[in-house]
Each structure stands twice: as C-alpha cells, then as structure tokens.
C-alpha cells in the first residue's frame, strides 16, 4: 500500500515536471505567433457552436480575438470544460482560459487571474407558475445547480434551509426544473438567460431574486508570469477605454439580443 502510494505520487510529480521550460509566456506566444485560448463550446452566448457555421462563436471568443490582435498574434481556440481547463492550462496546452470562470481567492492560489472582464450575478431561474420570487421562499425547497460552478455554496449560504442538488451540466439541471424535481436552477444570470432562451417556451420561466452573489469573471493564466498577465490586463483596459469592449459587449448582450443584460459595472482601470 505504502509502495503503491509512493509510486502513484512519483508518477504525479513526474507528470507535473514535464511542463515546458519557463521562458515567459508572452515571449513564447510572440515566437509562436499564436495565442491558444481555452473557451467553452456549450455556454451561449459566451462560447457555443453556431448552428449555421458550425464554428465556435461567442462573447469570449470575440474578446480573445481582440486580445490576440492587440498582442500582434493569431488566435487559436480550444474548447475546454470546467474540469479540463485548469489541467490544460498548467500543462501548457492552452495559454489562457476564457471560460466563464469566477475569480475567487481560493482559486487564485493555483492560477493567476486577469482583472474582471465580465461581472455576472448569481440569480434563480424558476417556473413562472411557481410564484417563488426570492431566495427567502426557498426554505425546505430544492435548488439545482451545475458542478464546477461556485453557485452551490453561495446558494447554501444565502438559504441554509434549502437542499442543493448539483447536476453534471446546466441542461440536466434545467430538465430537473422542468420536471419539478427542483424548484429553481441557480447560477450566473448570463448563463441562466442562455438556458432560458434556448427552451421552446422561454416565457414560462423567470429570472428572479436579489443577486445571491457577485461573480467576477477573470481570464486564467499560469501562476507567476506577471509579464504576460500585465500585457493581458493592459489590453483589457485599453479595450474598455477605446470602446472596443462596449462594441463586443453590445453584440452579445446588447438591447437587440436574446441575452440582454445592461452594462452596469465598470472595469477596474489603473491610472
């Protein structure tokens, strides 16, 4: 048993050491001429496969495109899931993660984050007919969420008397809501809007409740490479001040879109 444990940990340590020699990500990227970004492929409107073009499109893809242009390189995207994004980043398969990733202090210990590029709020998606409007109504009720998200603990904190049931993906959580197995689905409002508007009868569902928590999304990068992180942060700020960010935002979350969310927050701009 002891020998087995030793062997196992040896393999793990070896696997970790193979990560590429440290030369600075920014130089690497410029040398390669490509920025490899890990994005979601099933999370409209952040990153999803477009039905007509069969290409991955979305807010985060456009943002990455703008970032690559700013760095003077081409963009290559790789689909990631909530569970593959961090191993892929630490192994060097991708240079940066843009995958609806909430920035938290706990997570920041493992990777580095950019400044906030999108501010979401966690809300509740309910059936209109249920009459539930606030997290206070959920004592003794079941709330569904998806794994790999931070929503579970947040919901638990906001309503300790509720039972949280986490599903593999959001479509399953939504199916459980449809069938009445859970009374609400909770996660970031932008994602909930995406789920709601994909349904045949979006008008049957409602986004309710005061915001349970703020969910600041940050771009994920490997730990301790401040040169690259600075470049990304400066690019984001520049996009904000030049209005390029607003343009991309309006394309996906503007008034004329299915995912209308007014832009009510301001990016952290360093003087």
């Amino acid at each position, binding site marked *: *048993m002891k020998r087995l444990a030793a062997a196992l940990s040896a393999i793990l340590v070896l696997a970790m050491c193979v990560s590429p020699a440290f030369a600075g990500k920014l130089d690497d990227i410029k040398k390669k001429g490509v920025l490899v970004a890990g994005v979601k492929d099933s999370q409209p409107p952040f990153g999803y496969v477009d039905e007509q073009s069969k290409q991955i499109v979305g807010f985060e893809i456009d943002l990455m495109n703008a970032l690559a242009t700013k760095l003077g390189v081409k963009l290559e995207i790789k689909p990631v899931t909530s569970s593959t994004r961090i191993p892929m980043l630490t192994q060097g398969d991708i240079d940066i993660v843009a995958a609806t990733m909430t920035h938290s202090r706990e997570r920041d210990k493992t990777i580095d984050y950019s400044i906030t590029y999108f501010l979401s709020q966690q809300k509740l998606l309910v059936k209109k007919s249920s009459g539930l409007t606030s997290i206070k109504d959920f004592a003794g009720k079941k709330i569904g969420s998806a794994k790999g998200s931070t929503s579970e603990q947040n919901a638990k904190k906001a309503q300790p008397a509720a039972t949280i049931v986490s599903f593999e993906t959001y479509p399953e959580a939504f199916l459980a809501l449809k069938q009445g*197995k859970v009374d609400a689905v909770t996660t970031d409002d932008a994602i909930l809007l995406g789920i709601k508007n994909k349904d045949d009868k979006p008008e049957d569902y409602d986004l309710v409740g005061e915001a349970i928590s703020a969910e600041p999304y940050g771009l994920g990068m490997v730990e301790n490479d401040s040169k690259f992180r600075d470049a990304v942060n400066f690019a984001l700020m520049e996009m904000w001040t030049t209005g390029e960010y607003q343009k991309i935002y309006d394309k996906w979350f503007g008034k004329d879109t299915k995912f209308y969310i007014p832009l009510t927050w301001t990016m952290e701009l360093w003087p």
Partner: protein
Amino acid sequence: MAYQFDWSLVVSGQYGDWIVDGLVTTLKVSAISTVFSLALGTLVCVMRMSRVRPLVWFSLAFTEFFRNTPLLVQIFFWYFGSAAVLPESWNQWLYKQDFEFAAGVIALTVYTAAFIAEDLRSGIFAIPKTQLEASRACGLSFMQAMGYVILPQAFRIIIPPLISQFLNLIKNSSLVMTIGVMDLTYMARQIESYTFHGFESFTVATLIYLAISLVVSATIQVYNTRVLRMGR
C-alpha cells in the same frame, strides 16, 4: 510556474470535511445497494431456474436488458424517466424526498443484480443436477430445495466473482454524482472546482476507493477461507 501541491487542503479543514461527507455517502449508497442487489439477484436467478415460463422470460429479459445497457443511461432513466411513468401526484411526493439518493440506489441495485443473477446461475450449474432431483424426490418443494440445498452451495462457489461484483458496485457508485448525489467523487470534483487543486483531491479520492475495495475484498476472502471452506 510548476504546479504547487497542497495536501493539507484536502485532508483537513472544510475540504477535509467534504471528503468525509462524500465518503459516508459513498459507503451508504454502496452498502444499501449491495444488500438489495444480492436479494434481487437471487430472486431473479431463482425465477430463471424455475419452470414457470412467464417468470423465466421475465428474468431473462431483466438480465439481458440491465446487463447490456450503460449504467449511466440507467441512472438517468431512473431519475429523469420516473416523470413519464408514474402518476403526477406520486412524483410530487417523490421529489420532496431524497429522490436523487433513491434513484441512484435503484439504478445500482438493478444493474448489479443482473450480474449477480448470472453469477449465481453459473454457480448453480456447478452443482450436480442430481441434487435438485434428489431433494425433490425427498419431498422438498422447488423453493425449499433451492433454499436449503442448492443456493447455500452455489453461494460458496461464486464468492470470488461475487467479490468482483461488489467491488464494481462500489466503483460504479461514483456515477450517481451525475444526478446530484454528493458522494466521494462528487466532493473531489467540488473541491477541484473551488480550489483548482484537482490532483490532490482526486488522488485522495482514488486512494480512499482503493482502500475500501481492498478492505471489502480481504474481508470476504478471509470469511470465505476461514469460515465457509472449513467443512470441505
């Protein structure tokens, strides 16, 4: 830049508690499913051995269906499919209970029972047919002959494959996390998503599964050699 290991994170504090909670759930799901699947598997096997045609057909269909479809699909079927099969009022009542746990146990029980039934059948075939005939000739009914003569011997023979089924069940139990049962794998995933320290949490989970499996298999093995084989 290299990944920093932080083992204290998963073995103590809040995340350590999560692992313990998950372990308890895994043991609960596995233990309940083991007992039920052994009972159901035996029942299905006895039905198969009987001469009553509808029962034979039913058990044949049961084994083949549940042995040959993916467990994950079955878990989804029991959890999401109930809405289509049961009356709405029953569903409403069910959903108020811990339906996730129940659906997980049902899926694991039924799936494992199909395999146990087949193992037991092969065990029964290893016993000379004349024993059943002799028992019947002595005036025992079919059920009595099965219960007193055939099954006790068959169970001894199939202990090694039975251990495999139990170990499979314990490992398969990790699939119930797909319907929101917070088992060990679920908690490992959860810790990964909160801290991004996936290597640690999954290594700990793996070692725990390994430990459970070794303990279960050693215990049954010892029981088998020390207790059951004594009279042979």
